[in-house]
């Protein structure tokens, strides 16, 4: 028995069938409706769930809300510093794993990637216990900003550098070792070869993984909650606290800002990782 197909409709042209399109639309709606409503209501004039008119007032209020501002600057500071160090640490780990043979290398490689799958709550608890036992939790409380964030920064480096290592490592798999040999053969030293050949090759992976680490750090809640003290509240933790106390459209406005920052970082990361087009 054969199915009657309309002209221009192949047996695998599912995308043209109405029920597939409807399903696709439903999934998109399910995924993005909450976020869309969050953004829309950030422009609402009052804090009821009903639309009463457009305003930027919530953004202005959020900007002038010292607590939100302080939390956001904490978050950005933590994200920038932890990204810097986790990118270097991750890239070095990837290079070590790619370049050298040593005993228990496979086990080591597995352990490096483990924090990616370890539940955040476990990492949060263990880090919190670590900082308590070593006295770090109490000690940093009185340190001057941004040194009072150091526990959170350590924690963020710990969970984000494995992501960098994995991304850079997979990029290095495609490296032609003869490029390195060619560079040395042409008179370059080990360092010149690293800077002129290996780093440019790793660059897309470095940028992409740095942005990944940045966004991971920026919106981390669980681990941060366990490692932050009263003076070192980050943006996600602050919002959580505010939501507990009641709905306020300032939260929507601040969250929208966070979405925009994360989205921009992700877009840049995707663009950097896209294969170079030839013939431009």
């Amino acid at each position, binding site marked *: 028995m054969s199915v009657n197909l309309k002209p221009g409709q192949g047996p695998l042209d599912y995308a043209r069938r109405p029920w597939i399109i409807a399903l696709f639309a439903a999934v998109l709606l399910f995924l993005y409706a909450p976020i869309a409503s969050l953004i829309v209501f950030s422009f609402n004039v009052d804090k009821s769930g009903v639309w009463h008119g457009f305003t930027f007032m919530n953004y202005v209020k959020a900007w002038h809300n010292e607590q939100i501002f302080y939390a956001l600057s904490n978050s950005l500071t933590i994200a920038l510093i932890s990204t810097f160090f986790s990118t270097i640490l991750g890239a070095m780990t990837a290079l070590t794993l790619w370049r050298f043979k040593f005993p228990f290398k496979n086990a080591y490689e597995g352990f490096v990637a483990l924090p990616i799958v370890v539940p955040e709550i476990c990492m949060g608890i263990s880090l919190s216990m670590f900082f308590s036992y070593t006295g770090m939790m109490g000690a940093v409380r009185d340190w001057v900003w941004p040194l009072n964030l150091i526990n959170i920064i350590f924690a963020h480096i710990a969970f984000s550098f494995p992501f960098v290592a994995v991304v850079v490592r997979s990029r290095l798999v495609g490296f*032609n070792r003869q490029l390195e040999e060619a560079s040395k053969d042409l*008179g370059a030293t080990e360092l010149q070869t690293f800077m002129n050949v290996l780093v440019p090759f790793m660059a897309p992976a470095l940028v992409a993984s740095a942005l990944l680490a940045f966004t991971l750090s920026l919106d981390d809640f669980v681990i941060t909650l366990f490692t932050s003290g009263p003076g070192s509240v980050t943006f996600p933790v602050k919002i959580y606290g505010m939501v507990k106390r009641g709905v306020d459209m300032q939260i929507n406005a601040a969250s929208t800002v966070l979405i925009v920052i994360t989205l921009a970082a992700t877009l840049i990361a995707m663009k950097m990782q896209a294969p170079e087009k030839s013939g431009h």
Partner: protein
Amino acid sequence: MTEPIISIRNVSKRFAGGVTAVDNVSIDIEQNEFFALLGPSGCGKTTLLRMISGLETPTEGQIIIGGQDMAFTPPNLRPTNMVFQSYAVFPHMTVEQNVGYGLKVTGVAADETKRRVVEALEMVKLSHLAARKPDQMSGGQRQRVALARALVKRPKVLLLDEPLSALDAKLRDDMRMELTRLQETVGITFIIVTHDQDEALSMASRIAVMDKGAVAQIATPAELYEHPSNKFVADFIGKVNLLDASVISQKGKTVTCNTKMVGKFAIDTDKTCGSTATIAIRPEKLKLSTAEPKGASLVKTKAMVRDVAYYGDTSHVIADVGGHDLEINVQNDSRTGGSGVERGQKLWVSFNPHDALVLTE
């Protein structure tokens, strides 16, 4: 005699795991030679080339370049440059930057770098593509970049690792001529690694044939072809019929021997034979004829044509002589009739003993 530009002395390379890639090799390469390292894959030729460049270190032995022992000289300080099999052109640099790289990293002044890059690109006929990136170029063009990049350094020795293996047949012929021309123009020593005997024979002034890590013979192309020193070389360079012979007697330089296929005959040789020897004869030196060939010195036998393979300019005939195959090349020198040889035909096979060679090892 002038001092050799490269002197390889008793060099061996053993890899972890007990593999001996290069086994006690000694070669002297003269100034301005086009030298080929020829052998089947896994014979150690590339490892030897990499030891000359410094990318591998010998387990034993010495490599002397321009009178200096290179034992403790890293690749970046050696007067050699390499054209890699994969070309290894830097993908993130333009052609110009690629060619200038070796000068830039060694601190050559910018204006001199620019001048030499322009010169090198002209030499390989790539001036019009100076601003291109490698991913916008063909394999042949990328190879020219690799060549220019190495030549711009003005090395004492240029090392080429299987430079033609990735090119298609037509391009390979062009590049072969190009390399020969370049070598004559720049006047530096070229060492080329190849598994392709045609490549080595047509380009090189001297060839070292390698087998299982050791040198089987070092000679000019013609010498290798007409006077191979052993069975491996005879068999590897071109095609050859190898006949087992028992030696009846040797008087001075003349050996009388007996073979199953073509019977008893006398042949000249420089070698001292034991009780057995191998007679080597090239397919094009065997003649086919319908009538019994005349000439007292000719060695001849009757044969039955088992197969004819047509190659346009020649036909390769396989003839059966008492259960053994002989390969005979026939020139198709007339448009009508071709070789005129057909399967199943009974013919005379003959050769002049001067065209055959006695091999003892």
